[in-house]
């Protein structure tokens, strides 16, 4: 089992009456509410938190991309990943993900990922989502009719650009370039492991099958509602002749660990309420543009009892306690959390857990406590799960001894070493 520490970097200072006074935390949220000075401290704190996650033993440090939103403030995940590349040495850079549909030309993404992989020594674990409707269709104005087609062409171009050993021309429908020639090429061969974050589209599974990409799906509801997504995915892989492997799937979980179950109810209440009732207060207009999901996908999921937009609206009305009850979040003592994550991972057959252990307006202190408790008390209990399978969707970096250490190359004294993982690995898996 692999564990990622997945940060969304939300804005922590929306007013208490945000939900009543404003219609949306996304797309039309008034940017006068963003205080750049507060943002300065917040982003730096968040980057510190990701670095700490490496110190306590997480495999991956996760960042992602959202636009025009207080919910997720990283409009460029690659920039954030580069900041981490320099101040970490061991953990993978889980970019989950960068939009290839919204960059023109898409080779810009290929180049940036190559830079990340080179500077980090081959630690990039790369997600290419088609995107969430708020970002894709409304913020960046991509017509639903062409979004998926543009994504597929961009993916083909990027894959070719990464592996080409000589310049080529690309006469595509959306991109036409006489010269495609990536100078800096990724360390990992043929390229960093690729992920398709999604959850709403049948077509994404076909892309995963075609390119052997892993699938990361997200639901804003009880994890059991993710079953149709993951079943459909594994079915598609099976039909494509891909051997079953839980490491080709991952999911993200909002999670709070405390000493006891009762403590988790109160410890995380403020942060959870802020997440659901303020940050996820999105104008329903922006949740799903017509065609964001194809007619085919809509029919597929409707027939399996899934209504994504409704899930979201229902979830946004709930606070922390109701979410805990509904199973949208997992929180409790380390034993409770480990037990629930075990059940979830076995049922969904996921080998990568992208943990959201900071959420809402969680304080620095509580964030650190949650990361530490999870790393010391939960990870060891689950680490052995899926050990009979091999993970082909995590990075294969240069050996540690062959990698550059920041600060050592321009002359001057060596920096102090980064922390070693905390605690020993105790293999414990109930059967």
């Amino acid at each position, binding site marked *: 089992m692999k564990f990622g520490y997945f940060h969304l970097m939300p804005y922590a200072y929306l007013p208490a009456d945000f939900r009543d006074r404003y219609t949306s935390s996304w797309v039309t949220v008034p940017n006068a509410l963003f205080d750049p000075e507060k943002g300065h401290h917040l982003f730096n704190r968040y980057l510190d938190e990701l670095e700490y996650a490496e110190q306590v033993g997480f495999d991956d440090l996760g960042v992602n991309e959202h636009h025009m939103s207080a919910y997720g403030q990283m409009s460029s995940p690659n920039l954030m990943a580069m900041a981490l590349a320099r101040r970490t040495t061991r953990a993978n850079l889980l970019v989950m993900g960068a939009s290839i549909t919204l960059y023109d030309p898409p080779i810009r993404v290929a180049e940036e990922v190559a830079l990340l992989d080179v500077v980090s020594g081959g630690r990039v674990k790369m997600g290419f989502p088609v995107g969430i409707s708020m970002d894709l269709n409304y913020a960046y104005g*991509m017509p639903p009719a062409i979004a998926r087609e543009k994504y597929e062409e961009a993916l083909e171009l990027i894959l070719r650009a990464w592996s080409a050993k000589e310049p080529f021309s690309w006469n595509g429908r959306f991109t036409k370039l006489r010269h495609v020639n990536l100078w800096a090429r990724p360390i990992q061969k043929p390229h960093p492991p690729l992920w398709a974050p999604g959850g709403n589209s049948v077509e994404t599974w076909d892309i995963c099958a075609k390119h052997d990409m892993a699938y990361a799906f997200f639901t804003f509801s009880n994890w059991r509602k993710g079953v149709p997504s993951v079943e459909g995915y594994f079915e598609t892989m099976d039909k494509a002749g891909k051997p079953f492997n839980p490491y080709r799937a991952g999911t993200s979980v909002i999670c709070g660990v405390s000493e006891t179950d009762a403590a988790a109810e109160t410890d995380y209440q403020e942060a959870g309420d802020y997440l659901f009732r303020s940050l996820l207060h999105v104008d329903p207009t922006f949740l799903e543009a017509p065609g964001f999901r194809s007619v085919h996908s*809509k029919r597929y999921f409707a027939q399996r009892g899934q209504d994504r937009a409704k899930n979201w609206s229902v979830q946004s009305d709930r606070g922390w306690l109701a979410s805990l009850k509904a199973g949208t979040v997992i929180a409790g003592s380390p034993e409770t959390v480990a037990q629930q994550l075990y059940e979830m991972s076995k049922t969904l057959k996921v080998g990568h857990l992208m943990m959201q252990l900071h959420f809402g307006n969680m304080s620095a202190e509580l964030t650190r406590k949650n990361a530490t408790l999870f790393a010391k008390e939960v990870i060891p209990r689950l680490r052995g799960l899926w050990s009979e399978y091999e993970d082909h969707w995590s990075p294969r970096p240069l050996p540690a001894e062959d990698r550059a250490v920041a600060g050592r190359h321009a002359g001057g004294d060596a920096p102090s070493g980064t922390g070693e993982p905390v605690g020993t690995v105790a293999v414990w898996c109930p059967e």
Partner: protein
Amino acid sequence: MVRRGTGQALLYLHGIDGLTRWPEGLGELESSFEIVAPSAPGFGNSSGLGHLEDVHDVAIFYQDLLDALHLKEVAVVGHSLGGMFAAELAAAAPSRVSKLILVAPFGLWLDESPVADLVGALRKNRIAMAWGNPAGAAALLAPPASDEEALERDLVETQHLISSGKFLWGVPDHGLRKRLHRITAKTLVVWGNDDAVMGPRYGEVFASRISGSELRVIPRCGHQVIDEQPLVFSRMATDFLHNR
């Protein structure tokens, strides 16, 4: 393709709803005209949306269609999305369009009163935006009889919005403004005074850029002109097409 009525051929290019309804105002024209109403690519049973990248492809498509129908020259009525297509056709192939009626066409953008986001709106807001008189949209607002019916209705509407959105998403300005001067057809621009998607000011700009054209603004009327004011529209259209 629907062909109804008898008389002079009249090409009707529908709006974002496709031909799910036959507007009452068209029914009124059937006694004097043969209305040729194709479902545009991506609407109804018409395939081919993938072949239309932009409005230039659309203009070529409709010339191809007229060729296939052996219509050398035809009067054209276009509403909303179809109005934009009709204007582009008339500008690209002026000799193919004898007379032109543009009913609340898309295609322009005025910074001082931006086009409302009709295609990107929630269903209930879209209906409120499009219909000046909500009573006219009663059938659309009626709850479906069953979950299956609700799903099928939703999927048909979604497909129509995908197809409309290919041309109307975000800022629906594809440069028609600089092509309007090419229209030689005698043109009538019709606008609902209460159009909440684009106000009558848009009609003024269209009319000012098409020489010899006339603007008629219909009171107590929203964006769905042909549905909302069928008699006023059909009388206006008949008079115009018969040169009165």
